[in-house]
């Protein structure tokens, strides 16, 4: 299941970014998944639960994942009309009836945002260090 590998990438990117912002515990992750990105939202959610268990120190127990779906959209290079592509006939413009369409949306797969909390004692730590 390649959603495990994909979710692994998501976790790695968030861990790296969180470290740079001194965020130590994550409680929300928000993804954008295109309809034709080859990633399945349900499988991603399942993979998220697995990683959450494996990385309990990094995730709040009730950490959530939100997945925004990016709709598939194509545009005809002949008549410039945009249309919702049929899975099997992505490039067929419904107006011209020719294979003249190009995908303009629906292939994205992004981490939109995440939410987490920093070390609550961070200021104390700083003071203690300054004292010494």
């Amino acid at each position, binding site marked *: *299941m*390649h959603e495990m*590998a*994909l979710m692994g*990438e*998501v976790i*790695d*990117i*968030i861990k790296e*970014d*969180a470290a740079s*912002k001194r*965020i130590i515990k994550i*409680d*929300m992750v928000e*993804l954008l998944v295109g309809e*034709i*990105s*080859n*990633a399945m939202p349900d499988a991603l959610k399942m993979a998220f639960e697995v990683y959450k268990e494996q990385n309990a120190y990094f995730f709040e127990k009730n950490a959530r994942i939100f997945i925004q779906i990016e709709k598939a959209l194509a545009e005809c290079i002949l008549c410039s009309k945009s249309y919702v592509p049929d*899975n*099997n*006939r*992505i*490039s*067929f413009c419904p107006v011209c009836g020719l*294979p*003249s*369409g190009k*995908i303009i949306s629906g292939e*994205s*797969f*992004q*981490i*939109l*945002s*995440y*939410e*987490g*909390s*920093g070390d*609550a004692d961070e200021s104390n730590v700083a003071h203690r260090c300054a004292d010494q």
Partner: protein
Amino acid sequence: MLMKVTLRTDVLTNNNKAADYNRELFTTTKTLVINLMSSPGAGKTTLLEETVSVLSRKYRIAVIEGDLATEKDADRIRKAGAKAVQINTHGGCHLDARMIAAVLPEFDLEEVDVLFIENVGNLVCPSGYDLGQMHKVAVLSVPEGNDKIPKYPVMFMRTELVLLNKIDLLPYLDFNVEKAKRDLEGINLSSKLIPVSAKSKEGLLDWFNWIEEAYKTCQQ
């Protein structure tokens, strides 16, 4: 304190960075790199064996073999006469750009004209991973049936050539080549389809000519 961070980062950003690194190497050494993808058993290794045994007279060919666990395909390529390096993905369903970057030091790319990458047999996962190749080619075989192109549109959207392999079996199986062409056109207007048989060798010349054209373009 709770903090929300907006990222808008591509999930495959680390893969894409490694792919750019590979591409840079391939471009500076003018190595033609072709990423071959298909279902398990469509005939990638057999096609590469034939390709190596004929085109080795003309080009210095090397192959990276992606496989779940074994070294078998790399051995077959070596027997056919090309250098082959095996990447075992340990169950992983695709090759990624970092795996490729990790084995590139085993080749002297200045001394390689054409590098083939045989991806792990799978019509879904490999399509999403840029390896830094110049061309993505899908192999589809006659016994798999006509429904594969509409069933796995993303793979065929992202490849520029389909090698329809095992056409020696057309008389025995219910496969419609014209329909496959129409289905492909419906998904990707710029993709070509070349019917071949690695067994009877029919159509292989068209495939070799395609490589020749790609090689010329890559040398410019």
